[in-house]
């Protein structure tokens, strides 16, 4: 039976490479999509530090123009997560505020900030926001708090304390009691720091270049996140997987594996459709009349589709490695194993479509809908990270999820295919592949061989 199947695989592959249009669709289209998606995603993850989050747009109007307000503008401009658009004041403050409000109102920017006159003396920053932008507001608030800390320095801490007390219900007139001990305490703290500084005990918190600083922090100043981590009762430990490439963002490797997995489904359904073509042009009847085990027919489709799928996946990863500096070479064995298993599960899917459909058109329609839905749900277009919990749960019922998750676990977490986390995904994919193949071959036998399905 294997010999017969191989004979038919040879015929199918020959026909496949001869059909130039089909071949272009199967190979060129995935290359184009990987290029486009990878490029878009690498742009989104660009600038580093953003962790793949797009920067938040913030329009800013500085009506104070003091040293403090200018420092605030500079601090915000430096912030990774904020894309700052500084508006020049025209001299008519009311008109400027109205213009800024209109920007937010019209959706040109999600957020706008006004540094009012007197900002340097403690006047509050005014934030105009589009309330529909919850997630980006959180990112923006982190940036604003960070910038305020940098600009206002320690005053900010005392200010926060007073406000917290006011919020807690301490009346304004009692603040004198608070100040009775905070003012001497501040003075004592300041002299403590002055003495420590004079003794050379302080780390260079202002990064004016005098102290030996870590080079990574040399130009950005003290890292707010680091200070918070040091102050809060939280201990952070950096766990950097060995295989992770610093220059490749999560989004790019995700885009490459997502598009590869999706296009693989399209291409293999295209290949398995040859079964329907053979049925329509009568050659399938000829195969069925031949003195062969009819199971060899479907087996040959499975083998051919698997070979095409594996080849296509490898082409796509090699191509992506050249285009995006994706490190494929150092993890070739893991990629090969995941790709082989992914090609097998996708083959199962493609055969089922070919066995269920009663015409080419039906196969195309059915497979397109299923592939698009599974790709969207399974995270082929967008990491599931950004999706609601319902989708993250539903994703587990799609094929692309398990493949993409396996690919990402090597690209991002540097796992080898023998790692239990990867093996679990491979196991799921193989089980699904086997189940799909069994169902497809039963359907095939019942539909085409006259013999009752056994």
């Amino acid at each position, binding site marked *: 039976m294997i010999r017969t199947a191989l004979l038919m695989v040879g*015929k199918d592959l*020959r026909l496949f490479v001869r059909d130039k249009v089909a071949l272009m669709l199967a190979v060129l289209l995935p290359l184009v999509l990987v290029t486009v998606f990878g490029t878009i995603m690498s742009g989104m993850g660009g600038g580093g530090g953003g962790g793949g989050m797009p920067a938040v747009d913030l329009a800013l109007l500085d009506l104070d123009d003091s040293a403090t307000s200018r420092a605030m503008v500079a601090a915000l401009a430096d912030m990774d997560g904020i894309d700052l658009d500084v508006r020049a004041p025209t001299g008519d403050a009311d008109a400027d505020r109205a213009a800024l409000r209109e920007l937010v109102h019209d959706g040109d920017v999600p957020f706008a900030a006004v540094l009012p006159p007197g900002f340097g003396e403690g006047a509050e920053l005014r934030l105009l926001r589009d309330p529909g932008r919850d997630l980006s507001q959180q990112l923006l608030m982190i940036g604003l708090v960070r910038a305020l800390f940098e600009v206002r320095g320690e005053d900010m801490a005392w200010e926060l304390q007073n406000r917290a007390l006011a919020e807690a219900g301490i009346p304004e007139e009692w603040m004198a009691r608070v100040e009775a001990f905070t003012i001497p305490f501040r003075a004592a703290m300041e002299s403590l720091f002055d003495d420590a500084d004079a003794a050379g005990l302080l780390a260079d918190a202002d990064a004016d270049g005098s102290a030996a600083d870590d080079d990574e922090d040399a130009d950005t100043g003290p890292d707010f996140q680091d200070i918070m981590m040091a102050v809060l009762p939280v201990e952070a430990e950096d766990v950097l997987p060995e295989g992770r490439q610093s220059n490749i963002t999560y989004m790019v490797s995700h885009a490459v594996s997502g598009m590869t997995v999706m296009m693989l489904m399209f291409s293999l359904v295209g290949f398995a459709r040859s079964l329907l073509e053979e049925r329509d042009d*009568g050659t399938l009847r000829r195969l*069925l*009349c*031949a*003195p062969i085990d009819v199971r060899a027919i479907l087996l040959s489709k499975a083998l051919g589709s698997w070979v095409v799928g594996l080849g296509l996946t490898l082409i796509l990863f090699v191509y992506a490695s050249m285009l995006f500096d994706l490190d494929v070479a150092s993890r070739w064995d893991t990629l090969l194993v995941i790709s082989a298993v992914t090609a097998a599960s996708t083959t199962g899917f493609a055969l089922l479509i070919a066995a269920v459909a009663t015409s080419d058109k039906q196969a195309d329609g059915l497979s397109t809908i299923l592939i698009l839905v599974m790709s969207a749900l399974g995270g082929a277009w967008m990491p599931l990270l950004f999706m609601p919990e319902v989708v993250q749960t539903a994703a587990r019922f799609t094929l692309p999820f398990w493949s993409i998750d396996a690919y990402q676990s090597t690209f991002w977490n540097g796992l080898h295919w023998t790692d239990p986390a990867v093996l679990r995904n491979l196991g799921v994919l193989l089980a699904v592949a086997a189940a799909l193949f069994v169902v497809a071959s039963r359907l095939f036998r019942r539909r085409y*061989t*006259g*013999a009752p399905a056994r």
Partner: protein
Amino acid sequence: MTALLAVDGLTFRYGARVAVDAVSFEVRRGEALGLLGPNGAGKTTAISCLCGLLAPAAGALSFDGASFTPHATPAHRARLGVVPQELALYDGLTARENLLFFARLHGVADAQDAVARGLALAGLESRADDRVKTFSGGMKRRLNLAVAALGDPPLTLLDEPMVGVDPQSRNHIFESIERLRADGRGMLYTSHSMDEVERLCDRVAIMDRGTLVATGTAAELAEQAGLPGADLERTFLELTGRSLRDEGGSA
């Protein structure tokens, strides 16, 4: 002498529609049996049962005296050459590649030799390495026939092998078919062309609406129809009636 192929009570239903209803006939050694019948009579369905594409609901088949279940046993299908009613060829492969593929699929011992003979049978030696999609209808018909003859099968089932071919191709196919039934091999031949059947077939079986109406030589059938000496066409019309066989009239 035992028949090469004996069909006894063959029945097949598509759902509720009985397409072949208790049909019995035999093909003897070295004989060509013509199977005639109006459109929808059940000829293709009967052939599909014989070559294993369909599993009959009832009936016994025997080959050379031994019972025979083609749909269940691949080895049984090795005895049959089948020329399907439609052109069943890979358009993207050349004539040679088609022949070679099917020769290997049938486990023909010397595949290259079989391919050479197939090309000669189809008269396609000069176009052997052109893709089938570049062939004319008649060329494809000839190749369709040559593929069925690849393994020198003892019995060949031909389902309208000469639709849409010119007189030259027809003549070539006639000669090829006459060679196929030499050496004691048998042939079941369906056609709507009476002169083809008169020229090629020793005996004729006439089917109508799933049942076998009559079997015998052309002269015997004419006598059965009460038209001694009549040609096959008149006999056929007499036996099957003149009404059209569209769905409404035959239900």
